């Protein structure tokens, strides 16, 4: 609970709040990118180097750009048109709050009953990237291959969807 943690948490929450409440859609996407960057920085603060950098590389560098492209390609010029006003869907904020409270409760229960909390003195892993690599090649090679297959399928699917039809 140190100063960097509070600053990063404030930045992440500000980004998430902005993603919910800003008017322009592209502004929301950019605020979401700030939230992703904040989460990446929080991972780095906790010492998970690979996870934090992968979060920055994948989420901010690819997913945020993807979201922005999708906004532009589907909405085009009126990406900044004002969205539906909250007054016309009155029960939505309450339903959202209820869902958020339920998710928070489940996450809190899961974290407090997990092994990390039960044994607070966990040794810090030294060379965690090397361990990650060894584990991927050793114990988790089947999930790795399955993920590779899934990514290949996604790539081929994207090319097929975007290909021009032969007249």
């Amino acid at each position, binding site marked *: 609970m140190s100063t960097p943690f509070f600053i990063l948490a404030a930045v992440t929450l500000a980004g998430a709040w902005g993603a919910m409440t800003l008017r*322009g859609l*592209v*502004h929301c996407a*950019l605020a979401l*990118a700030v939230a992703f*960057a904040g989460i*990446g920085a929080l991972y780095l603060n906790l010492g998970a*180097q*690979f996870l934090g*950098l*992968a979060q*920055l*590389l994948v989420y*901010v*560098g*690819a997913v*945020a*750009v993807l979201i*922005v*492209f999708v906004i*532009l390609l589907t909405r085009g010029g009126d990406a900044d048109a004002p969205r539906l006003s909250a007054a016309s869907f009155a029960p939505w904020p309450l339903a959202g709050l209820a869902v958020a409270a339920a998710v928070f409760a489940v996450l809190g229960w899961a974290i407090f009953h997990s092994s990390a909390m039960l044994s607070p003195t966990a040794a810090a892993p030294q*060379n*965690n*990237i090397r361990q990650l690599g060894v584990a991927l090649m050793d114990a988790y090679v089947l999930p790795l291959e399955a993920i590779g297959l899934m990514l290949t399928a996604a790539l081929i699917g994207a090319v097929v969807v975007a290909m021009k039809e032969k007249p």
Partner: protein
Amino acid sequence: MQPSDQVFVLLKHWLVGQSPSMLQPAVSILLTIVPILLIFPVLFALTTVLERKGLGRIQNRYGPNRVGFFGILQPMADAVKSLTKEDIVPASADRAVHFLAPLVLLAVAFVPYAVLPIGRNMIAANLDAGVLFFFAIGAISELSVFMAGWSSRNKYSLLGALRAVAQMISYEVPLLLSSIGVIMAAGSLSTVEIVEKQAGFTGIFPHWYVLTPWGFVGFILFMIAATAETNRSPFDLPEGESEIIAGYYIEYSGFKFALFFLAEYLGMFAISGLGITLFLGGWLAPLPFLTWIPSWIWFFGKLLAIVVGFIWVRGTLPRLRMDQLMNFAWKFMLPMALVVVVAAGAWRFLPQGVTRWLISIAFLAGAYVLLARGVESRNKIAKRTYRFAE
């Protein structure tokens, strides 16, 4: 090592020792960061003069030669001009994002310098995952390019930004894949360790990765991808002056334009620095009898050589069209980068000697010829036929 090699490290330790003990961490951090913030913009200023003079000479004209001896004070004149120009923001532009885009781009351009080893024991942050950090921060710059293009509310600006982002994303893949070979050979993602693994000489040749077959091809792929990542000619369609009138920086004037320019050149230096660290042996000397020259002089010498290479290529090659650019990335460079990864793996496991050289070279050359023929077969250029009036 010799004092001239470690002079900056010793100076920093002395200054930190002189300051009161409560301020020592802050002074240490400042003394690490401020030189980076000072040196690379000065290098940028020098590079602008070098580039304009160099391009001028390639194009058979003098470059700038009015301001100062041989135009050396031209950057000062440019700085004064850009500071005093009127800062025009289009009326319908998104003011917040328009203002933030050059700042984000500049911040993201400075951060990767933290993991470049500029000399022996001279690195700002010795991260375990240095190379991954570099690529992660580089990926963030695409978002700021998009911000610049979109916030200007200009069709051409948006088109230029989308093209630039597509180009940067496409060329990131060969960039990362060509550096995987180096990471495999060095066994670590830390830039300091990668440089240390390239130390040592066999006879007169250093153990740099560029002097292995896969390293040579990997270096060329890395440099081509680096040229495309920083939107440098011949890949500067998104910002070409005759194509789309400066693309995503159309609506930026004065100092913001200068900030974009600075960020682009800083990105170029950073990625060249990474290329030097991965392939050219970082701060190591090329020949065994030249190790008395300080390590930081070698780093900056190699950096200047690569910058001169960039300028030379800019003056020589014509610009690539967007579809040619994308085809080149996905159909040629990506398969070639995968072949480099396989060749690096084979190199690591084959026993030392002539066989491993022959096998690697044959594999890489064969892949190159097949890929080049495959890409070329799309443009079937037939013999020109003429139709005359009867």
